[in-house]
């Protein structure tokens, strides 16, 4: 079975683009990715597209050309991008296709997501009483984690400071202003222990990736960046998820750890072999907990990792080299593909001011979201 290779990448800058629809940002990213790959829309044999709030992705053919291409929409919450990529990979690996794309885009209203209980299988009172709030979940999860594993508030701040530092060096990021650790820690609380600088915001953006079989990639003369693994998992028993009126006393693993183990198994490598990682950082505590859930360190070791700067650009495992969701915002449909985009940039050595030395040979991405979905990819050059 051929590996799927990523031969073209395109992005519409994240943040706020007034007057441009999410769909147009997605189509913009597709054109960029095709230019990068040196292919044209009529060459594309299949597409998987995802968006939560910005329309049906397949209607993009109106903008790109009515070639009759197979275009399948993917709607999988925060794992939408990862699921689109998984599907694209399988389409290539099956031998049915040798050139296609995965695209994700979104455009969310300002402010926090506004979810209704019925959409999540919950009773109305849960929302009426003020519990349909994602920030409550992230804050209670990290509060318990800090208590159990000795993580300090300074560590929460260090992750944000790194995000803004890296984001300031990425052309596609939203937040380009560095923020000092002391300003981050002293800012107003949103949900204790998180201040306003420690959360990402829903935003806008689009990302597209052109996928090809190894044979096709060679024909096109493209460097081989292989998608060694793409895995998506839902929550197991005993996990702790967004919008939970109750959780089990007997704690279990998470969707993240299941997806991670599967991706490493498929790729045939382990966490120590990864050179750069993009981890879901809905808030800074998520990045910290996800370092352990993805197998990169033991619970509690993050305190030393962050104090020593091991997740910085020049550290032993650079994490969120473009500033992650905290600096880029989170357009849900595009967010997971942004992580893969950034890893391709890093593996190609095109990261400029944020380039990981080496350049790296392996890249890892991880998304997580409600109600307990996670997607992981591993790239190798």
């Amino acid at each position: 079975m051929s590996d799927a290779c990523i031969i073209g990448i395109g992005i519409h800058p994240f943040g706020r683009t007034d007057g441009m629809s999410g769909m147009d940002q997605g189509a913009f990213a597709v054109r960029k990715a095709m230019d990068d790959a040196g292919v044209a829309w009529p060459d594309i044999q299949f597409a998987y597209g995802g968006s939560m709030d910005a329309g049906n992705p397949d209607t993009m053919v109106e903008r790109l050309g009515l070639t009759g291409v197979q275009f399948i929409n993917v709607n999988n919450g925060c794992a939408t991008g990862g699921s689109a990529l998984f599907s694209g990979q399988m389409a290539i690996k099956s031998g049915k296709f040798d050139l296609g794309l995965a695209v994700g885009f979104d455009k969310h209203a300002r402010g926090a997501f506004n979810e209704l209980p019925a959409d999540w299988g919950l009773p109305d009172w849960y929302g009426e009483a003020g519990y349909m709030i994602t920030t409550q979940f992230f804050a209670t999860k990290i509060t318990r984690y800090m208590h159990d594993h000795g993580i300090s508030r300074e560590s929460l701040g260090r992750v944000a400071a790194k995000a803004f530092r890296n984001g300031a060096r990425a052309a596609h990021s939203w937040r380009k202003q560095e923020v000092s650790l002391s300003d981050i820690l002293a800012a107003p609380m949103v949900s204790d222990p998180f201040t306003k600088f420690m959360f990402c915001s829903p935003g806008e953006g689009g990302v597209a990736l052109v996928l090809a079989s190894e044979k096709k990639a060679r024909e096109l003369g493209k460097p081989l960046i292989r998608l060694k693994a793409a895995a998506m998992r839902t929550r197991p028993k005993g996990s702790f998820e967004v919008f939970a009126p109750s959780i089990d006393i007997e704690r279990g693993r998470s969707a993240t750890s299941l997806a991670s183990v599967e991706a490493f198994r498929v790729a045939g490598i382990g966490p120590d072999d990864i050179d750069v990682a993009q981890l879901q950082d809905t808030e800074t505590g998520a990045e910290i907990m996800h370092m352990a859930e993805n197998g990169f360190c033991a619970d509690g070791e993050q305190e030393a990792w962050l104090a020593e700067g091991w997740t910085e650009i020049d550290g032993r495992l650079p994490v969120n080299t473009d500033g992650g969701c905290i600096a880029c915002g989170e357009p849900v449909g595009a967010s997971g593909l942004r992580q893969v985009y950034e890893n391709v940039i890093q593996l190609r050595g095109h990261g400029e001011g944020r380039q990981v030395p080496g350049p790296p040979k392996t890249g890892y991405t991880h998304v997580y979201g409600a109600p307990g979905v996670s997607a992981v990819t591993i790239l190798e050059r």
Partner: protein
Amino acid sequence: MQPIAQGLFTNETPPRLIGGRDRATGRIVFPCPPREGFDQQPLGRTGTVWSFTIQRYRPKSPPYCGPDAFRPWTVAYVELPGETIVEARLTGVKPEDVRIGMEVELTQIPLDEDAAEHVMIHAFRPVGSVP
């Protein structure tokens, strides 16, 4: 005075929360899911704070039905021994005094204290505190 929803509290004084026991696995959840396979199970009234945060901004309406005027509140997960960990507000304790492991007991508080007719939601307060 009325509860925010039917099926949350038992009809006794003081009331208990009604959870659901999965007939197949024995797993206890709150609230009791309105589907086959779960039996109603009144939950213990006392437990310990498992984790918490402070809600510092007014949630969006809909779905939130609380008062327009906003005061921060404490949201906790309370471990009811041998049963489950329930999400609930804390009352009768200042946010800065909340600790993981603190012993708390079930009470009811109005969603809007100033409303003519109180709609009651579940909350926990430190054991021995004045209601």
